[in-house]
Each structure stands twice: as structure tokens, then as C-alpha cells.
């Protein structure tokens, strides 16, 4: 065993109660940190999932301009002309297949899907509801807005004249799977559909307004043959959506709005959560550092005669330095290992205590390896940093003085 480790480990064992106290202090700090980070991350993920559950990360749509040549990229490799529709739903995107391919090829883009959308009414007997008609390509749409696992009833399939509607809309209209409804578009075209499935996207508003039909049916109803209204994109990581949106906008000359752009208040909430986590982390770090430093300074003072003896028998100053750095690192490491366990335990306990009436957990908690490894690395590093001052003091002790005065 290296000499420094031998001495450091023995000193920690010797100062048992001091070691236990400081390791506990580090553990409590790290435990609180892990617990709160898990809670914050859980809340953030929950908030993001709620908001982005039904919303694409980026919506690409035509600019307000009139007929214009659009390029896919600077080299003009692919260009096309958008067909101009002088109706109220004005702009649309023609020949979207190449665009979809180009957008999908962008780094960070997971999936993209074409959407045809416009206002419409759904009627069932005497009841009439104003809705947003969304023509979708089911397979790619599911990759952008995971909807197949949010199906409340029926099948996840739409062909010909089948539609998917939200839970609340179904209740409002009094229809279920297999029932027929009539959709009348703002263009005054109408078509009869069979309800194939009922979805629940977790938002009452969306569940009330969205009517999902096959792309072709929506194109007919909205008089958009061969064109789509927008392209919707899913990206990773979600916080890079704005950057990716700007890149898409530059390359396609279309308008690309990220969720961050359309939900500034959500972004602000997430950012302030993140910065409150940082502030907390900062203070916990300072506290841990001061705790370790003070214990080690006391230890160096108590041991100064022994350090003098070590130096007298031929121990190099840098070995003495390392003894105390190792002590700091070990205290930080041990404390953070215990603290991580404490934090996870606390989080689990919290989740089990805070339950909704239906037994589902009220606070989602996200425990990942990162939120454990980061504090362990941090506390170990802080332990070493906190040990620098006491370790240097120990290494610089004048051996003759130290032996004489203790």
C-alpha cells in the first residue's frame, strides 16, 4: 500500500468520532442535494411531458409571403415552387416529401411528419362542435407525438374514413368507438367518418379540439390536394429545439417555431427551476467544503508533533501533503456515497407518501446515474480542494518546531 494511503486511512480510523461526524455532514449535504435534484428533475420532466406530450418540438410552416421559390439548401440542389391558394387558409407546403427527408437528415432530429390542418365542425345529431381538423400520416405522426400509447379506447388505426378523437370530444358528442360523425370543413366540404379510436393526450383542450383523420381525407376537406399545412418535428435533446429550428429555417426558407419559442413562460419556469437547483448546489458545496476544511485544520494542529516526527524519520513534505489530500478525498467520497443512498431513500419515501387519490404518485421523481455520479464526483473533488489549505500547512511545518512545541 502506498505510504500516504496507509497513514491517511489510519488517521481517519483513529479520529473515529471526528471522521463519523464529518462523513455524516457530507452525507446529509449530498443527500439533500440528490433528493432535491431528483425532485426538480422529476417535476421538470413531468412539466415537459405534459406540455410536449401533444405538441411537436418544432413546427415548420410557410412564411406569410406569396408565391416564392423555396430552396432546400444553399446549393439549390432541390428547389420547388409552392402552390398558391388564395383562400383563407392561404399558405401551404407542396412537394413536402423532399423537405421531410431533408429535415429528418438534420442532426438532432428524431422524426418529422406532415400535417394538414384547418378548422372544421363535427356534428352528431343536433350537437355541433368546433374542432381543429388534423390530417396526419399515422406512422410518422406517432413518432413525433407519441399517441399510440395514449389511446383510451378503440384501435390505433385510421384508413379511408376513419378518425381518432379525444376523450372530452367523445363525451361532448356522446359518441364512442364505432359511431359515425360528420365533419364539415370551413371550405364547406363535408364527409362522414367512423370513430376508430379515442385518445387522451393529458390536456383537456387538446382532447376537445383535435380530430385526427388520414392525410388524404383532410386534404380533400380543406381543399389542399397534394400539399400540407406544416411539418412537425421531434428533436433531442429537447432544449436544443430552438437551435435546430433556426437551422431548419435557414436551410428551407420556411418558418420553424420551436416549443421554446411558442412557450416562453414554460421555458422561463424550467430555467428558474434549474437556477434554483444551481444555487442550492452552490451552497451545499460551500458548506461541505468548509466542514471538511475545518475538521482537517483541527486534525493538522492536533497532529503537528506527529507530523514533525514523520518528517524527522525521512517523510518527504509532499507525502505529508498527500496524506491530508487523501483524507479530504476519502471523507468527501465516503460522505457522498452514504449521501446518495440517503437521497435516493428520501426520494422513494417522499414518492410513497405523496400519492394521489387513485394511488398514482403525485410527484414524479427521476433518479438517474448522472444525479448520483455528479454529486459523488463533486464531493470528492470538494474534499480534495478543502484539504489543500490544511495539507499545505502540514507539509510546511518546521519539524524542529513541531516536535518541540507539539
Amino acid at each position: 500500500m502506498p505510504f500516504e494511503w496507509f497513514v491517511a486511512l489510519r488517521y481517519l480510523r483513529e479520529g473515529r468520532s471526528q471522521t463519523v461526524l464529518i462523513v455524516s455532514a457530507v452525507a446529509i449535504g449530498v443527500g439533500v442535494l440528490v433528493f432535491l435534484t431528483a425532485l426538480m428533475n422529476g417535476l421538470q420532466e413531468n412539466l415537459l411531458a405534459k406540455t410536449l406530450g401533444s405538441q411537436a418540438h418544432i413546427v415548420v410552416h410557410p412564411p406569410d409571403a406569396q408565391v416564392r421559390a423555396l430552396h432546400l439548401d444553399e446549393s439549390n440542389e432541390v428547389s420547388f415552387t409552392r402552390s398558391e391558394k388564395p383562400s383563407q387558409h392561404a399558405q401551404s407546403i407542396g412537394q413536402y416529401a423532399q423537405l421531410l427527408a431533408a429535415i429528418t437528415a438534420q442532426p438532432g432530429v428524431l422524426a418529422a411528419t406532415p400535417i394538414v390542418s384547418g378548422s372544421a365542425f363535427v356534428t352528431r345529431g343536433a350537437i355541433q362542435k368546433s374542432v381543429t381538423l388534423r390530417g396526419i400520416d399515422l406512422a410518422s405522426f406517432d413518432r413525433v407525438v407519441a399517441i399510440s400509447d395514449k389511446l383510451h379506447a378503440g384501435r390505433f388505426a385510421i384508413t379511408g374514413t376513419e378518425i381518432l378523437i379525444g376523450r372530452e370530444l367523445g363525451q361532448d358528442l356522446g359518441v364512442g368507438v364505432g359511431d359515425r360523425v360528420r365533419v364539415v370543413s370551413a371550405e364547406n366540404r363535408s364527409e362522414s367518418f367512423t370513430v376508430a379510436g379515442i385518445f387522451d393526450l393529458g390536456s383537456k383542450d387538446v382532447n376537445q379540439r383535435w380530430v385526427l383523420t388520414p392525410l388524404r381525407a383532410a386534404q380533400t376537406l380543406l381543399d389542399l390536394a397534394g400539399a400540407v399545412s406544416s411539418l412537425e418535428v421531434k428533436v433531442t435533446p429537447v432544449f436544443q429545439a430552438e437551435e435546430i429550428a433556426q437551422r431548419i429555417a435557414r436551410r428551407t426558407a420556411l418558418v420553424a417555431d420551436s416549443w421554446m419559442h411558442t412557450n416562453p413562460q414554460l421555458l422561463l419556469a424550467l430555467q428558474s427551476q434549474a437556477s434554483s437547483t444551481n444555487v442550492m448546489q452552490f451552497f451545499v458545496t460551500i458548506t461541505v467544503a468548509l466542514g471538511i476544511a475545518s475538521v482537517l485544520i483541527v486534525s493538522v494542529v492536533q497532529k503537528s508533533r506527529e507530523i514533525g516526527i514523520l518528517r524527522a524519520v525521512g517523510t518527504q513534505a509532499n507525502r505529508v501533503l498527500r496524506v491530508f489530500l487523501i483524507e479530504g478525498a476519502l471523507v468527501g467520497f465516503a460522505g457522498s456515497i452514504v449521501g446518495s443512498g440517503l437521497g435516493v431513500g428520501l426520494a422513494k419515501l417522499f414518492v410513497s407518501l405523496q400519492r394521489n387519490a387513485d394511488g398514482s404518485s403525485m410527484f414524479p421523481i427521476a433518479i438517474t446515474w448522472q444525479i448520483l455520479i455528479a454529486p459523488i464526483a463533486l464531493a470528492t473533488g470538494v474534499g480534495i480542494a478543502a484539504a489543500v489549505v490544511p495539507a499545505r500547512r502540514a507539509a510546511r511545518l518546521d519539524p524542529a518546531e513541531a516536535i518541540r512545541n507539539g
Partner: protein
Amino acid sequence: MAEPVLEVRHVVREFGEGDARTRVLHGISLTVRSGELSALVGPSGSGKSTLLNIMGLLDRPSSGAVLIGGRDTTQLDDRALTELRGRTLGFVFQFHHLMPAFSALENVLMPAYADRGRVDSKLDARGLQLLASVGLTERAHHSARDLSGGEAQRVALARALANEPALVLADEPTGNLDTHSAEAVFGLLRRFCKERGTTFLLVTHDSRLAARCDRIVTLVDGRVVSDARRGAADTAPGTFSET
């Protein structure tokens, strides 16, 4: 005459600054020769410990030089001094200064561990042999804090010998012991000196112990006032006989 192990030349040591400056050693010159058991005596405050610290490379003189094995140490940096100290010098202090967190055996081997930079069980045999030579084999694995004063000082003596030093500097090693333990420790010094040829410089207040050494150096107010070898011409009056 045996070869010099350690030499101090015109060593001056002053403490403090400005008006508070006091000179503790006034130009000491002394040669310690191989195989000698020498006593350094003198009244309290005469500078014995200060001189021993300088000879032990634990402190630097204000002026003058310390030569070890003929080599001037004045220009050496802390790293080189530490290495030289660990390999060629051993220390015994008035208080044993064992490290309580370690066993007797580990304390004995501490200089060897420090020199190698690692703890090596291959050294255990040497440590046990040293403990046997001070009669403490059965205490090897006891914690240093469980030893009696006399036992601890014998362990400290074994520790001083761990790296087979050319010179052991002992500052009042018996000053804190009862007569019986003091006699045991002094007996060991004499035996090591005779059987192994280890060189010792011993500070003592006990004139009867000093009288049993090969040589007595007397320090008064930071000056060597007498340096007498048994059976040789003295610089000061006095006769020496074994008791």
C-alpha cells in the same frame, strides 16, 4: 582514529529578529566519529537540543556548516535533506513520540516505509528483529498507546535503527524514565554501539550515564567548554571510569 560520521563547523544559531535576536550557539565545531558513544552534557538552556536539531538536519544553522560523511549539506534543498536524514540519521527524543494510531511494529518500520514510499510486509522480518533486539517481540502488534513508558522508549530506539543509520541522535532519551527503565535503555545503546558499531550522540543530565560513555562533550551557554575522551588526553580535567 575512526572516520568522521558527522561534523559541525563554526555553527552559529540565532533566534528572533532585531533587538529580540539572541545567539544560542556561538560557533560550535565538533566531529562525531564512527562507532563512538558520546554524551553531550550541559546545563538546561545551554543549547544542546538546538545543536542536536542542527546536527539532525531538522534545523539549519544561521551560519556554519554540517557535513555528513564528509559531504557539506549547506546547499541541499528540503527534499535532499529529508532523504539524507531518513537514510543516515536516527532520532530518539525525551518523549518517545510514537504514533498512537500504529502498532509497535509499524512504528519501528515507519522510517523504512517513508523511505520506500510504501508499506511492504517484506520489511516485517527486519522490524521483528529490531523489536527482538530491544526485548519486545511479544508487543509487536500492540498499539503504541498500550505500551509502558520504558517499552515505548525501547520501541522508539528500535525505530531510530530501522534504516541502519550511521548516527543516532538521542535527546535525553532516559530523562523521562524511572532508574530501572533508564538503565535498560542505556544498556541497549551501549550494546548496539558495541555489537553493531552504531554511532550514538546522547544528550543526558545523568552524570553517571555520561561517565559510562566513550566521550563527553560539555556545552555551556552555547559554547563547547570541554571535550573529553575516555583514555585519551582531556581538554578539561576529569577522570572517567566504568561503574
